[in-house]
């Protein structure tokens, strides 16, 4: 990440499209979508310089950005691994073995919930209900849901993510990559 954060021309285009959704003078409404964009484009987490940059883009004060970034759980307040693996731990998923899946991830990667592997590849985070309770246990990586998870499917997923990292070494532009996977993932 460069010292002074800056969006690529493509991201600036996306910024313009997002801001156009809100009335004149209400560009602060774009804050949450723009923070998603900033997190995806500028290193996977929201550092103070990144938040200040977002404030300048939307002509609002930095504190207005900090207080929002700290409220919503999807915004990372510190660096995370290349892949953040989020496993639902709530009621219905817990009934169908979510705790075992989280335990299996911790044991396989040798880290605890909330931690990051030393190679910077994976961050583990248990989350609350992802709205896919009928297909639990559920894991979300980036914009993709992986459902009806078993220990074997977790192993296959980790392997697949490692393969992806090897073929796409740069973590930059995960947003663009995510947009493409989302378009192809769709509904099964």
């Amino acid at each position, binding site marked *: 990440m460069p010292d002074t954060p800056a969006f690529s021309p493509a991201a600036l285009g996306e910024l313009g499209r997002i801001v156009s*959704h809100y009335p004149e003078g209400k560009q602060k409404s774009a804050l949450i979508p723009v923070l998603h964009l900033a997190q995806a484009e500028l290193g996977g987490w929201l550092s103070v310089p990144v938040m200040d940059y977002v404030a300048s883009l939307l002509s609002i004060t930095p504190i207005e950005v900090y207080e929002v970034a700290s409220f919503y759980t*999807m915004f990372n307040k510190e660096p995370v691994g290349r892949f953040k693996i989020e496993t639902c*731990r709530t009621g219905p998923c817990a009934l169908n073995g979510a705790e075992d899946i989280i335990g299996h991830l911790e044991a396989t990667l040798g880290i605890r919930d909330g931690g990051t592997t030393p190679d910077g590849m994976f961050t583990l985070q248990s989350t609350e209900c992802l709205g896919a*309770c009928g297909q639990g246990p559920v894991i979300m990586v980036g914009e993709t849901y992986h459902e009806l998870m078993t220990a074997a499917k977790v192993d296959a997923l980790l392997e697949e993510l490692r393969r992806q990292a090897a073929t796409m070494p740069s973590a930059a532009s995960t947003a663009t990559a995510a947009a493409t996977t989302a378009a192809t993932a769709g509904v099964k």
Partner: protein
Amino acid sequence: MAQRKMLLEYADNPEARSLEGWKRLGGYAQVESILKTRTPDSIMEEVKSSGLRGRGGAGFPCGLKWSFLDRKSDKPRYLVCNGDESEPGTFKDRHIMERLPHQLIEGMIVSSFAIGSKHSYIYVRGEYMYILRILEKAIDEAYAAGYLGKNIFGSGWDFDLSVHPGAGAYICGEETALLEGLEGRRGNPRIKPPFPAVSGLYGCPTIVNNVETIAAVPYIIAMGGDAYAGIGVKPSTGTKLISASGHIRKPGVYEIELGKVSCEEFLHSEDYCGGPSNGRPFKAVIAGGSSVPVLPLDLFVKTAAGVPRMMSYESLAEGGFVSGTSLGSGGLFVMDDSTCMVRNLWNLARFYRHESCGQCSPCREGTAWMEKLLERLEAGEGKLTDIDLLVEISKKIEGNTICPLGDAAAWPVASHIRHFRHEFEHHVRFPEKIRDPKHNVAAPIPRPS
């Protein structure tokens, strides 16, 4: 009675996912004729006579809510669709947004026309980012076809539609917290009144409705409000999506005619849950999302008076919160006898503590305290007095907070203890038996007869 598919008629048809395909299925023709031949007031009247109740959880009559809109104000009006869907057990709106995006867009066009909104928003929880992209693609298609934008369908009416993501906060499902998120702020619910219908988005008159509510509106106008009111059992009119999960053979999203399917049938019929997944008897049901009171199996299938319960707002509420529950969002999850109800409640208490926005002290402090006590009980380190203390705390939260999240956190606690007190006492009396996290699978805790 088998499913009555209205909203979900085309849910499994891939054609429904593109605008061209949706049109081949008859889509948008109805909307065009509505815009050209109906007045906003006549649409409002149909929605009122349909008896449609909000599908987001509270079940408030939709037509009545629309009639509260401040029509004297000269400010713009807004319609905001609530696609936050974060109530544990609920995954029905996803089904509509993901598989039937144009059905929702049709609902937004017709409802916005009735309300007088020239720019409406669909708020989608941040985790559903892939669904947001599906909706954006569908919206782009609709703009290209002239169904959104200037002078839509040549009706002389301009209408814009945008999608707005959340970023991981259950509280943003509460309508005023949602509006805060839409204005680029923390999701702290607002004090009501004023209600959004008077002062909502940017201080303008605003209607917030659930995805399923809005998707039903074009069907109501097409068949007429009275015909819609003939479906179901009044005052539970129409169809309702139920998302079913837990220890059942056939989890999924089902569309029922309200009041026509018994709770027993819903659990066991092959048309719905299909019975237990692990061959163990069912023990408890949470019928309408994690916030509604849990019921033991016998009280779920029959009221305390022994009357078979039906899947409707009224029947599930029979007995109040003492022996009844609520249809809520339609997020139904079922627990078999391997489930430890203490652990289940601890899990839900952790959810509410995690999701409290922290504005009111009873909710912020109370949810944290309840979680701590439950963690202790579940670990076999609790005291008998903790059980009453939990009930006490839940009572102090209920009704004493800015938004209903406080109540939503209190009800599961009160109901789990009311109906399964013996399990909580068992945890205190036999701590050595419950140290293994799988304790209940091996030896279910017997219910005293």
